[in-house]
């Protein structure tokens, strides 16, 4: 295998971006995925940053945070958070990327706390813009490490709503989002260090879409806290191409985020 798990995740993330889309980018791997998509199949995509930045070219230097100075240079707009998330609130953002500490089978994410919320065992930093991106983007892609304690049957706290849960009024899925009043959206991809999941929006369940080269369905199951449901065409993940790897390594030459 001549690529790292992070490079594979970046390639998977870039493939979520369609040409011409407006993408809520964030930091680290999605930032590289945005740059990769831009230079391969989606030259017309536009990146939005909750710090208050919109740009149609990746920054000239590798960013450590979205607030780094190069991210404002050559931007289409430098403004404030309410304007940028406001665009997403109005339905103008097709795809959002977020990470999480924990996720469950319905794509609900927790970045707030482990344990009882009144007496947390581990206090995590909180939503940031994550809850907003999960609520308001048209599609949501999640990137996180694949560990059994992170992919759970049910998360301790829903910071960023996915497809909710089945309740007395109906199933999880898009109908749950409508019931609670979310205007659109829901997870479309969960990209982990081991696998790619897609979601069945009719009941909100994650489906194993592909498992990364070097792993197996059985191993993914072992590392996942819910009984896997396989997508009909479940197969091995297509590895990053030579062209994709070349671009990734140009964007992150020292492997800060991808090695």
């Amino acid at each position, binding site marked *: 295998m001549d690529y790292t798990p992070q490079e594979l995740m970046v390639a998977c993330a870039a493939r979520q971006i369609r040409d011409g889309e407006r993408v809520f980018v964030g930091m680290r791997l999605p930032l590289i995925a945005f740059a990769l998509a831009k230079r391969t199949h989606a030259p017309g995509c536009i990146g939005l940053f909750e710090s208050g930045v919109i740009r149609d070219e990746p920054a000239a230097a590798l960013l450590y945070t979205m607030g780094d100075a190069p991210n404002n240079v050559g931007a289409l707009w430098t403004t404030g958070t309410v304007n940028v998330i406001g665009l997403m609130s109005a339905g103008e953002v097709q795809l959002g990327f977020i990470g999480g500490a924990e996720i469950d089978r319905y794509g609900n994410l927790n970045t707030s706390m482990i344990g009882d919320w009144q007496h*947390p065992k581990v206090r995590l930093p909180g939503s940031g813009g994550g809850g907003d991106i999960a609520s308001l983007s048209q599609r949501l892609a999640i990137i996180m490490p694949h560990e059994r304690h992170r992919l759970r049957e049910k998360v301790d706290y829903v910071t960023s709503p996915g497809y909710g849960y089945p309740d007395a009024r109906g199933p999880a899925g898009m109908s*749950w989002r409508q019931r609670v009043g979310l205007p659109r959206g829901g997870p479309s991809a969960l990209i982990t260090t081991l696998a790619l999941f897609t979601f069945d929006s009719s009941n909100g369940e994650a489906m194993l879409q592909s498992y990364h080269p070097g792993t197996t369905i059985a191993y993914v199951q072992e590392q996942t806290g819910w009984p896997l449901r396989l997508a009909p065409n479940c197969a091995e993940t297509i590895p990053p191409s030579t062209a994709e790897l070349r671009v990734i390594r140009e964007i992150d030459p020292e492997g800060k985020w991808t090695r």
Partner: protein
Amino acid sequence: MSKRMSMAEAIARYLPDGASVAMSLALEALIPFAAGHEIIRQQKRDLTLIGPISDILFDQLIGAGCAASIKAAWAGNVSEGLGYCYRRAAEKAIPRTLTIEEHSNFSIGLALLAGGLGLPYVPTRSLLGSDIPRQNPTFHSATSPFDDTPVLLIPAVRPDVTIIHTQRSDEDGNAHLWGNSGISAEAMMAARDVIIVAEEIVPRDVILSDPNRVLGPSFKVRAVVHEPGGAHPAAVQGYYNRDHQFYHEYHERTRTVESYQDWLQDMVLSVPDRATYLEKLGAERIHGLRVKQHLLAAPVDYGY
């Protein structure tokens, strides 16, 4: 009228114990660390901290025992994830109990927007179905009277004091801020009192030559503090870059209560002011963060 004063004087005069203070408003950039350190040195107590992603400034203030509560979207260390002081306060009430009102970046921005507009709340569809409204008792779930759909009402937040780090200001507090601004403008409009911290103090004519770049009305500004380097280790567009290594060092040095106290003594309590802090960092480190290439915007013509 000049509102210039030292940081020590500005904090002493305008930030009483028990005040609510909005700061660290442009997310990872323009964080007023110099103000935060002065708040710690003056041993301010029972503050309510208001902000979006607050990075390590709120972690430091919480660890020093300055905060009784926090209304924020995120508290930790952007370079490392978790903030140890925030964890200790939330998990073990060390050094004291901390009341946490969960927000998202949008909801805290909307709360300040409502505050600045003099309205009781702003509705949103964000966060519906999440646990945040259940945990933040100030949020109110409602049905829109116009279309019968669920909405979440975010109540106004009106900080007693908003502290904003800017590139340049005149002595009256007419300040230019450029680059991404996060929720700085909303926090300035919502505040009772504003403290402007500036890298440079420039003549009024310089600011008024480009009024589109002014963040907000100077009549809300009570104090103007000239504090070069006052945002370190955060970035200031056109002045210096983010000191990423500092955030890693902070993370390593604050794992335990004792090591945090050592860090605090070393970097805050034993340092009387920002100039001494910068000296302590050393010329080489400061030089490494300098702007390597200036990129000037095209001038605009206000002629008539």
